[in-house]
């Protein structure tokens, strides 16, 4: 299987306090890689580095390499705007923009310069279908996205990300505020999407990682404790800490 993202000796600190220590990790193409770990373990920090959203934090220093298709995205010369158009991101809280469903999803394509309404509609429809939301909203695409339920909003955010036609999708605890049914719908969507995309799912819900991911990584206190194929991690972890975490002894 191809490696999509290579993380090499990556260290990050916030105002001098280390958040990630010398992480080395490979993310495979067309797979769901789950990042798990207790709060403050550095898993969210890691994904914000991949699309350089970390630039909006203050007092951050990082060191090391993240290579996507061989190009180091931590290089200061990298065009972050183009980078972010290749890497979609879904946040922990559903964050629709205060405009219509259609405009939310068309936001990314429009930034790319697509203005033709037929093209835009095709992209919107396609993205909504992939996020399993189209049937629920097809009659009210022009109504405000704020009126959707939490679960719908989160799928809208997923669809909005898909509309960018990215290679990689980063999901930062996307189901933390959702009910089990909404969660199931998103997980269903993800398992379909991995055919076309490389997905990184951050979650502190170990069961979700077990259900959905192909590979799993366990972070603790800024260190990568263990990484491997999900079934192995969950059935036969090589580290004591991993086992304790999976069994719910802390976290």
């Amino acid at each position, binding site marked *: 299987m191809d490696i999509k993202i290579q993380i090499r000796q990556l260290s990050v600190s916030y105002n001098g306090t280390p958040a990630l220590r010398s992480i080395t990790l490979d993310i495979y193409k067309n797979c769901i890689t789950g990042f798990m770990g207790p709060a403050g373990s550095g898993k969210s920090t890691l994904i914000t580095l991949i*699309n350089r*959203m970390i630039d*909006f934090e203050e007092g951050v220093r990082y060191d090391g390499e993240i290579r996507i298709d061989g190009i180091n995205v931590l290089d200061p010369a990298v065009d972050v*705007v*183009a*980078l*972010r*158009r290749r890497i*979609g*991101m879904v*946040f922990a*809280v559903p*964050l629709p*923009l*205060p*405009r219509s469903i259609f405009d939310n999803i068309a*936001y*990314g394509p429009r*930034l*790319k310069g697509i203005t033709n309404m037929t093209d835009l509609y095709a992209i919107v429809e396609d993205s909504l279908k992939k996020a399993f939301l189209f049937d629920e909203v097809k009659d009210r695409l022009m109504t405000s996205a704020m009126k959707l339920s939490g679960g719908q909003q989160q799928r809208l*955010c997923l669809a*909005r*990300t898909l509309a*960018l036609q990215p290679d990689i999708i980063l999901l930062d605890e996307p189901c933390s505020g959702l009910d089990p049914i909404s969660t199931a719908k998103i997980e269903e969507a993800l398992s379909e999407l991995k055919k076309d995309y490389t997905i990184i799912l951050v979650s502190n819900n170990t069961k979700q990682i077990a259900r959905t991911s192909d590979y799993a990584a366990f972070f603790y206190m800024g260190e990568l404790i263990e990484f491997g194929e999900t079934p192995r991690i969950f059935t036969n972890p090589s580290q004591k800490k991993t086992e304790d975490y999976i069994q719910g002894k802390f976290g």
Partner: protein
Amino acid sequence: MRLPPRFVNTLVALLLDLVALGTVGILVVIVCVIVVKGIAYIDLNFLFTYPEDMGRHGGVFPSLIGTIFLVALSICFATPLGLGTAIYLTEYTKETMMTKTIRFGVESLAGIPSILYGLFGFIFFVIKLKMGWSLISGALTLTIMILPTIIRTSEEAIKAVPRSLRIVSHSLGATLWETTLKVVLPCAAPGILTGIMLSIGRAVGETAAVIFTMGSSLRLPTSLFDSGRTLAVHFYILAREGISMEKAYATALVLVVSILAVNILAYYIMHKVIAKYS
């Protein structure tokens, strides 16, 4: 003798109630006096005919148009500048010595009394730049005068836009400007509009800065370099020179009602926004 605290408490509550109502009463009385005394002399004719005999007879049409032109021009100049400043201060830069200096400048401008704006506009635009007493001199002077209001309200409005929306926009590959234009400004629009409305109110009612920069010609200004007399200046001259009390009250009515309408609309929009975010 010491009064029992509970009694004092009730007394004070009552007293404060009266004081607050009394103060609002001042506003009500002012508006009522103007409306009651002015309403009899005002009709469409008054608004759309030319004044005769220094304003003793006839209407206020040139002043009305002069006021609209003056205010529209100064808003057109001040809004991009003020909005640009607010965007720069909130979106494009971090708190540094420089932003502190800019904020100090804005605060200082806000504190300068209008007569000094008049003095400055007179010497700079009218005399040094040889624009004469004209619409353009008045508009440029007012632009500087209302700039702080627009900057401060816009800044407040922009700051109130949740950070998360910006983050989302950036994550979708928008540049800082695209984010500002497509996400931040639309969300902040009502607040910015409130600032513009308040500035309009201020500009319409201004006299001291206008009279020395735009002059007081009663003619209809037909070019940027024509002198003109705004409603506020016209009212000042009518009232002060005792030309016609009827016309003065009628002009005051137009002035006060339009300013109050703009202000009330501004507060209404602001209130809507507050209701939306909370």
